[in-house]
């Protein structure tokens, strides 16, 4: 056997083995997701959330919303947060050294004044310049914190220090929450009789082309633009399949930074959000889990499949590229910080399953895909067309499409936000086109993320948003 043939076989069978393992993972994810979603839906049919809304036993919650240069919509966004259905709530807006007039607008709109506030620095942060409360008792739930710029993680840490309540919910200030989102997110914390629920996440959906009025979602539409529509399918796949499956195994590593609830005591004990990574959301969950594992305390990270939070997805390749680049760097940094857990039985499911999955199929997948495709093209041009490798690629492609269509089916059978048959067929079209028109860009952004990390470029990447559609705009 010549060395070229050996390399070819190694390459072909290596990719084949990787694809088979990935296929098995997808099948298992599908099966676990079905089981967990069914169980949740059955349980939810017995739940009366009005109980929580009226009870004095409801766990107290603090919403933490960091804001940086959000002056354009900050008043409406805060009003939307203040209108959420929840009894025992405080809303903390952290102005992370904005250069615009966000703070002045808040002070004026909500009749706020600076209070003497002793900030207990349980987690070290950049200095707080002032804490504001409202003269108007209607806004007694609202606290505005003005601090020096230190990034999202630092702003959240300030919020954790200032929060008075047992649990906190971190959200992106521009997200739109369902009115009962907090009631639904609070419930998992009340159910843990034998194991402590340390965090809970909810599904984030794409709000582009949806109609938002007064900070509330009034009509769900499938995004009209190409990129947001592609991301809609991506989000359905990630939230309804992957996260539900990992929840079944109690191996969930990621709760979206856009919307998640946490046990404040555990977060403080863990040292709060890590300011040295751009993937602070994933890193915190991993660290909290590691903390609990190392103390041998029974715990759970919960996830609920209800669509509770709506966010605007990037609609240009430039912004999307930055976002995916950042996600890749965040993943790598988190995996690097916690590398001790890899195949370490001390960490149970976390070390033996969740961490290896993220390493091999979230971090390495785009790299293998990128170099596999390049390698195949070079080989075909240099030697001959390698039909077996091409066959594997086609198989992987079909598998991806099948997985996407399965996700759409789960959406139809469960929450079915896109009611029209045309919308579902459009999503199926997206599933077929995505591997050719969208996925290569995502892979390329991930590769750039790896390169940037090697070059030690660790910027967050500016995220400009276009704003939601209102009824007027839509008509």
């Amino acid at each position, binding site marked *: 056997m010549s060395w070229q043939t050996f390399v070819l076989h190694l390459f072909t069978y290596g990719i084949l083995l990787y694809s088979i393992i990935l296929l098995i993972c997808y099948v298992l994810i599908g099966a676990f997701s079905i089981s967990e979603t069914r169980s949740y839906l059955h349980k939810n*049919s*017995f739940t009366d959330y009005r109980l929580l809304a009226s009870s004095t*036993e*409801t766990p107290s919650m603090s919403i933490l919303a960091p804001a940086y240069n959000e002056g354009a919509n900050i008043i409406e966004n805060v009003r939307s947060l203040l209108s959420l259905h929840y009894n025992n709530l405080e809303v903390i807006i952290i102005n992370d050294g904005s250069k615009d007039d966000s703070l002045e607008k808040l002070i004026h709109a909500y009749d706020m004044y600076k209070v*003497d506030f*002793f900030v207990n620095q349980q987690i070290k942060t950049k200095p707080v310049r002032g804490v504001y409360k409202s003269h108007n008792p209607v806004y007694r739930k609202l606290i505005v914190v003005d601090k020096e710029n230190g990034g999202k993680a630092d702003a959240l840490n300030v919020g954790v220090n200032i929060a008075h309540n047992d649990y906190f919910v971190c959200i992106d200030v521009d997200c739109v929450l369902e009115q009962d989102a907090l009631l639904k997110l609070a419930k998992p914390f009340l159910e843990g009789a034998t194991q402590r629920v340390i965090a809970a996440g909810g599904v984030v959906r794409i709000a582009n082309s949806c109609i938002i009025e007064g900070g509330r979602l009034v009509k769900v539409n499938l995004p009209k633009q190409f990129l947001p529509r592609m991301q809609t399918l991506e989000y359905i796949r990630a939230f309804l399949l992957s996260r539900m499956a990992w929840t079944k195994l109690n191996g969930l590593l990621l709760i979206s930074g856009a919307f998640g609830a946490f046990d404040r005591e555990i977060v403080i004990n863990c040292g709060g959000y890590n300011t040295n990574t751009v993937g602070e959301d994933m890193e915190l969950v991993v660290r909290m889990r590691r903390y609990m594992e190392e103390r041998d305390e029974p715990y759970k990270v919960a996830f609920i499949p209800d669509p509770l939070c709506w966010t605007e997805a990037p609609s240009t390749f430039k912004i999307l590229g930055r976002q995916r680049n950042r996600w890749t760097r965040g993943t790598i940094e988190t995996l690097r910080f916690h590398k001790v857990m890899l195949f370490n039985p001390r960490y149970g499911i976390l070390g033996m399953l969740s961490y290896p999955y993220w390493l091999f199929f979230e971090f390495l997948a785009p790299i293998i895909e990128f170099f596999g495709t390049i390698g195949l093209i070079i080989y075909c041009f240099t030697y001959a067309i390698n039909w077996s490798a091409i066959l594997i690629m086609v198989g992987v492609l079909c598998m991806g499409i099948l997985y996407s269509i399965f996700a759409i089916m789960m959406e139809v059978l469960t929450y079915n936000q896109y009611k029209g048959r045309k919308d579902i067929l459009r999503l199926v079209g997206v599933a077929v086109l995505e591997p050719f028109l969208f996925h290569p860009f995502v892979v390329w952004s991930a590769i750039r993320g790896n390169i940037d990390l090697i070059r030690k470029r660790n910027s967050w990447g500016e995220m400009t948003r276009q704003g939601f559609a209102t009824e007027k705009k839509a008509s």
Partner: protein
Amino acid sequence: MLILGLLVYMLSYMYFKSVYDKKFDKWSLISDLLIRKAIFYDDDEIEDHTLIPVTARAEKLMRDKHFRKLLVNEITSAKKNISGISADNLKHLYVQLGLEKYALNNLTSSRWYIKAKAVQELTIMDMNEFVDQIYSYTDDKNDLVRMEAQSALVQFKGFDGLRFLDTITSPISNWQQIKLLQQLSHLPPSDIDMGLWFKSANSSVIVLALKLARNYHRFELHDDIISCLDHSDSWVRIEAIQCLNEIYTDETSDHLISRFLNETIKNQLAMIKVMQTIGTDKDVLFLLDLLTFENDEIKIHAARALVQSSKNGMISLEEYSKEVEYPINEIIMHIKGEIAA
């Protein structure tokens, strides 16, 4: 092939769902009519053997399990929102149509959600006669079945329904405790004997007993609550601490102070919060001592308790701040701000 298969399944599902939705709309009208007829049935006419008129169409549809499910859902949701004679009439209709037999049959199902639904249905329909059958599910291995059965007992027997707490071994989650307390809040207070519950090996039973003692101001249980401060489970201990906020005597703060140093930070903070309510001048020295602790959270809680529990609390605090400036001076400003607000 698989892709095509999934597509066909999904589109067929959507098609049949829309067909069923239309059919359900028609069925909904029939069941609405039936329910309305029962609700407004003349109260003089209804007796045990009186039959509420049911149309032939509805009787025929009763053989269809989907229609029965729809009808039961509508009857139970109507029953939840009404009371008095109209509610009795709905129960009469439910029994007349023999729907309780299906529910009883479902109680033996191997699927937990069917079993739990059956318990819930019998509870909403006030089918007290099946309370013994339902009792056996109060310690079921499935949490939902257990929860529904426990709620049923409370619904049927009020405070006496809590007798399942004497023997229960499974944990009662906070969610279920909220549900039970909410159910009980509609009933007149009771002085049910809770002695056994305070000695339960099941921590969640003790926690529920503590919540009941707190909500119903059972001052005679003070000593039982104090004994919970030495329980091995910190969940029980913190609940007992919070309970003392409502049920206390002149000596309660001494009990808290004597156990303070052995507690977790979380429970220590809960203790200091309670001292805000129950503390007196005799506790000033203890609270001042807490200002020397390293943990700033303890300091701020202690300062607050000092100000609220003693007339001279603020003066003592200001005196102390002359010796140790930071962070006490900032904490004083913070607390003054709270008082002003």
